[in-house]
């Protein structure tokens, strides 16, 4: 049956873009504060629920729903910074890690309490059905996911490279002490970083919701795969996070078809272990010397 390879590539790319967006959120927080936020997957889930609430439950137009999502995720990012990061960052990495893990569990149950456990349907931006090009069936939502990821990356690049705010956030990520000496309000930059990563996760939820359905557990898998993507791509590298996520999506789908669908997750993690053993910096990881 012809068309298998392009079909696998296209679907793997779309799913990988979601992992890449989640990974991008991870990296931004990691670069800024040296910590990994394990509630990032639940932020994906919250973004989807916010949009569904606005558009499906309250019957608001799409653009209102999207705006509600952006504002809502910004607020969540801010609350997370104040409520989780601020109380724990001085206590060390494990305190923050445990707090974020605990928050992820609490958020899943909170969502069940508020919205119930039944999966919710998120309407699509475009036509419901797929179309085919030869033997390849194209899901329009997958095109939106890929296109949106590219657009978000461009926006992120422009923000971080061309705007004063972005430069200040980069300076904070490179060296908080030096940034403080330069007059940059580091705590404010950290808030912006968390808000930005929260919004990115929410947008990932908005993109993936129509394809997967909206459930309290939808973020968990994305979080794990995004984390793996960051490790493969190289912690600290923004292009690495995205490309690592895409690679995970492609490995997952190819191994499912060509090797075994029962063990596709194990194969992805086997690749992770191989990277940790032979290329622990990841594909684009940078060597960072530690002060002694």
């Amino acid at each position, binding site marked *: 049956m012809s068309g298998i390879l392009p079909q696998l590539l296209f679907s793997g790319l779309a799913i990988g873009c979601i992992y890449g967006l989640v990974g991008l959120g991870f990296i931004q927080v990691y670069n800024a504060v040296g910590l990994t936020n394990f509630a990032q997957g639940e932020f994906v889930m919250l973004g989807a629920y916010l949009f569904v609430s606005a558009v499906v439950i309250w019957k608001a137009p799409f653009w209102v729903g999207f705006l509600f999502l952006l504002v809502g995720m910004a607020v969540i990012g801010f609350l997370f910074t104040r409520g989780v990061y601020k109380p724990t960052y001085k206590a060390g990495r494990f305190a923050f890690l445990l707090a974020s893990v605990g928050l992820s569990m609490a958020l899943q149950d909170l969502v069940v309490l508020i919205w119930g*456990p039944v999966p919710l349907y998120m309407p699509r931006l475009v036509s419901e*059905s797929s179309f085919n090009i030869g033997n390849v069936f194209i899901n329009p939502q997958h095109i939106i996911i890929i296109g949106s990821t590219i657009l978000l990356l461009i926006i992120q690049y422009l923000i971080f490279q061309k705007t004063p705010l972005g430069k200040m956030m980069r300076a904070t990520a490179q060296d908080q002490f030096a940034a403080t000496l330069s007059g940059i309000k580091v705590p404010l930059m950290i808030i912006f970083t968390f808000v930005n990563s929260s919004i990115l996760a929410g947008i990932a939820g908005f993109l993936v919701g129509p394809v997967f359905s909206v459930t309290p557990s939808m973020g968990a898998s994305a979080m794990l795969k995004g984390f793996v993507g960051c490790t493969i791509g190289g912690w600290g590298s923004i292009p690495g996070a995205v490309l690592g996520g895409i690679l995970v999506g492609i490995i997952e*789908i190819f191994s499912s078809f060509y090797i075994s*669908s029962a063990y596709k997750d194990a194969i992805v993690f086997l690749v*992770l272990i191989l990277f*940790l053993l032979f290329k622990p910096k990841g594909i684009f990881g940078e060597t960072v010397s530690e002060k002694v």
Partner: protein
Amino acid sequence: MRNKNMFLRFIVGVLLISFVLTAGCSAQTQTEQPVETEPNAVETPEETQPVEETKLEPIKIGVITEITGVQAVAGKAAQESINQYVKELNANGGLLGREVVVLYEDDQSAQTVAVNAFNKLVLEDKVAAILGPLYSTHCLAIKPRAEELGFPWLAMGLNDRIGTEDDPKWTFQGRTSDAYTPTLVLNFLEEQGKHNPAIMYIGDDFGIDGKDKFVKLLDERGWTVATIEAMQTGDKDFTAQILSIRASGADSIIAWLHQEEAGLFLRQLEEQGVDKKQIPVIGNSSFLGAGVTDIAGQSAVGTYVISGTAPMLQNPEWSQKFFDEYGANPDFLAADSLDGFATIVRAIELAGTTDPESVRQGFLSIKDWIGPFNFAHTFGTAESPQHGVFSSIIVTYDENLQTEFVAQVTK
């Protein structure tokens, strides 16, 4: 330092893969492992004997269900249907002239928590009987503890090991088990002239055992298996599996999934051009779950489903009452939970008392009892004493996404 970093990263990687294999992959229940117990629990059958009770004391019945976790949709359905039933039961005089009180325990969609919930209900709450979870994985985890304590309970999982393995005495099974359902499915496919199915299963106790039974039966019939594909709970994209099915030349698809995956699978089948008129799909009862038609939409039309309960068809009056109270139609989870609870009530009624051995005998005394959804329950058969239900209904979704009767099938 470099070696230490590498070693630490290796450990992290191993931990991650262990996490996936234990939590994300098939949850094979290790029944030979020691079961966690309450810190102060005394593990003797004598602990399960009820204290002296007066006739005015309410009868407590425990329900272990998934109120939180990935399978929380089951818990919501169970609570709604059982609460409604108990309200009516108590309004009509209760059970043995006593009020019935339901004690819910959340198993958090996790095996160890399910076992702890069972311990609490038996040892602390002193319930008369327990309705177990709807998921086989959790039922298989509870079973050794129930047998050890000598306490009667009704498991609602479908895996036939629940009611047969290790010759259980106290574990009863309230739904048509996978000892029979695969045969009924293949009989149905044979009537359709299909002999080369693909199997798509979910990688937990329920799915793996179902798949193994289908493979064995197909081999016995001399049919071919076009391909066998798996997914895990929480998986969202099935492009690879569906491509494999398309490439295999399958003339039908047997899908043994849970409900969220069922909805997504149906939708993605259509998106990838699989025509259900050419390649019929028959799924397990999960395909009647709440949310499946929301997720699948028109992709669900023409899907066949084999289920113990299809409440809108089997008991329209009750379904209407459920809708009036909760604003949504009941699904198979609500119906199965209610049927299981009603079976426990019947067993206690026949026992005439609430001591564990009498309740156990009460279960075994149930013969040709017609439950709320108009099918017979018979326990204590020579072939399969712990199983109580041997029939299923096959339905399909019509153009309006309503269930349409196709056939009533019996072992």
